[in-house]
């Protein structure tokens, strides 16, 4: 039975089991591979997407619980050619190395700034602590988020 989903503003129907993780639905059934598998355990944040604006680990999110909710992925952030301010800030700070954690980092950061447009460094660290960057670009990510926040003033 096809399950209706609202992904990046577009209605989609996917033929999948309701206990399948949203992560593989996005990646393998909808071709939205910007959201990454990192651990499948909700420990690394690489799979972070927004569910009605809140950051969730899509690897632990059963498809059935996402029905009727708005899913936003990294592919849905830019408005046409105009990048989201957080994406712009990541570019300016070069807040990545291999880039594999970047989608999840950006989605977590977007969620933070939606909730708290002017976070302190401590609040940034606290909010982002569930996202792992093995390349160790944390100081740059904090700087990028501060930069994006200052642009929002």
């Amino acid at each position: 039975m096809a399950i209706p989903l609202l992904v990046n503003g577009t209605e989609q129907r996917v033929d999948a089991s309701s206990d399948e993780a949203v992560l593989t639905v996005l990646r393998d059934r909808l071709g939205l591979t910007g959201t990454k598998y990192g651990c499948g355990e909700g420990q690394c944040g690489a799979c972070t997407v927004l569910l009605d604006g809140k950051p969730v680990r899509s690897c632990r999110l059963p498809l059935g619980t996402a029905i009727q909710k708005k899913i936003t992925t990294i592919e849905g952030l830019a408005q046409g050619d105009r990048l989201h301010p957080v994406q712009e800030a990541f570019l300016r700070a070069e807040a990545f190395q291999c880039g594999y954690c970047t989608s999840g980092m950006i989605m977590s950061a977007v969620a933070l700034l939606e909730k708290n447009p002017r976070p302190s460094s401590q609040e940034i660290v606290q909010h982002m602590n569930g996202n792992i960057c093995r390349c160790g670009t944390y100081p740059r990510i904090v700087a990028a988020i501060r930069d994006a926040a200052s642009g929002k003033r």
Partner: protein
Amino acid sequence: MIYMETANSVFDSEEQQHAAIQRLSYAFELQRRDFLKVIGGGVLVCLAVKNAVTQESGHIHHGASDEDLLQSIAAWLHVSEDGTVTVFTGKVEVGQNIRTSLGQQVAEELRVPLSSVQLTMADTELTPFDMGTFGSRTTPIMGRQLRTVAVAARNLLIDMAAQQLHTDRNTLLAAYGKITDPKSNRTISYGEITKGQQLTRVIGDDPAETPTSNWHIAGASTPKVDAHAFVTGQHKYTPDVVRPGMLYGKVLRPPAFHAKLVYLNGSDAKKISGVKVVRDGEFVGVVAHDEYTATKAAQALRAKWDWPPQLRDSQLFDHLRSKSEQGSGEHNLHVTGDVQKAFAAANKTLTKTYTVAYIAHSPLEPRAAVAEWSSDKLTVWTGTQRPFGVQEELAEAFRIPKPKVRVIVPDTGAAYGGKHMGDATVEAARLAKAAGVPVKLIWTREEEFTWAYFRPAGVIDIKAGATSEGKISAWEFHNYNSGPAGIGTPYEIPNQHIQFHPADSPLRQGSYRGLAATANQFVRESAMDELAHELALDPLEFRLKNLTDTRLRAVFEAAATKFGWGREKSSPMRGFGVAGGVEKGGYVGTCAEVEITTRRDVRILRVVEAFECGAIVNPNGLRNQIEGSIVQAIGGALFEAVHFDNGRILNPHFARYRVPRFSDTPQIEVEMLDRKDLPSAGAGETPIVGLAPAIGNAIFAATGIRLRSLPMIPQGLPQSENVP
């Protein structure tokens, strides 16, 4: 000579350490006509190294008809009729940012904007053979080779322009992808010059480069060339590759290492719609139309295994010492002077044992592969540091000639030395062969933590002697199993006995960023601190007193100055530590400040690191590598360790294997010394080695507790010194 000659260099080749890369043959499989077909018209310049052609190095050889030549080609570069420059290199991009820094160097020498340079990397069918991306060799070797090719291409284009403009080549100027005759003010673009041509030149490895002091594009901070694709989620890593008709695979893993399959029942798995069970000897896997179903099917397999009793981690260090080579070969031994005599004459001696745990690379992109057979040819996409090594692994596994295997490496979600092997590709290819369609296999995090290899654990004995004036007189250093990289000492010590003892490792082990330099320099720099304490000398002063290497002195001094070394004294709640070293042509000096919390935990407050690796190619890229190395080093220094018992990994999850997070990150200040007068060395590894000893020394300065095991505080600070 590429590497700086240090006491280390007798040991430090990565091939020596790991069988993983010992079986390579130097080979180039593609016929010249094939790649000319691929790239079309224009001008192609190839760089040949290491054989007859280089005897006439410096000359441009007309017509590379000799197929033998191709055996030795290291890189090539193509200028197309539309002016696009494509560079072909077997190196891989794993986040160290060489797609940008190599492009900068080509753009510099070819006098074109960086935006017109494309790099085709790590595709066994399109790029020249390359041993692998490791050992910090890309910048010193491939960078130089690509500059050489670019210079030759520029000279060739100038020659051609001179012919077409009927003028003397020496009057012509190359800039911005064009050649201008200042006298007539005529300009001709590279693309126009190459129109209608299909020219090939093979040159020797004899650089005639722009002096680094004249660099404009190289030497300047340059954003990652394809950064946009990463912040928009558009970059396709291996797990993102999709092929027509592709299925998803899972492999049945044994419950323990060295287990033998004694019973398998796949009937429940086969009942699941669309599932195929594949068995070939000990290998068992499933394929299905989606990952979800493949996972369910793998869980439905019923298997029984037998496995031999195996060690637990608490027995590890005794095992390594007892199962080690004592009188190993000369290449593992460095002796100068007479240590025994010197110890007898020393005023102070120190005898200690240090240990290091196995740690996991845990790159965020797990091992993965997409494999596709078309008739007898196999194409594989995978994240690996050794595309040609993986090609060979696959050719052997499936008993097919290497030219029948194509390995393509998309820019990869990191490696840190952990992606030398092609296990996932062999598995995916076996499943794809059985399925008759392409198969994607992505290792789970648990598989990644279990079936990948680890940074070697080790035991290190150090005995040191010093005179009452604070001069080190004797140094005896034995490393059991962890490795020989960085095992030497940069200090002036007349009597040395330094030895690496290979040992039987209970876990599969291999390369790791910086190799054993992290362990060896942790021990050396901690022991230096212990000696300084015994002699009641300031740790920095003691080091400088025994050090003549001006490059190493410079980074120590730069770090100390920026840090404000000596401005404040350590107290029970706050400690300051210093450490440094040289490895793979990089010089590092690190100062750290730690806070001892009331709950007896350690918080790193501030790290200042000075780094020097010759002429800097991309300052912001280098800074990123140094910062990242410092952050990554925190894990191995303080809390990362692989726990195991009887063939099982006990903590194969991020929830139980702690890696550095945002909250572990101190204030980091980086000082980069740009030596434009020296060749560029690689910098992806060595900045990692300074942190652990600087932290250990800072903890000692605060508490008097000397921590001699990596990781140092997996469970917080001990109450007293942990003498092994």
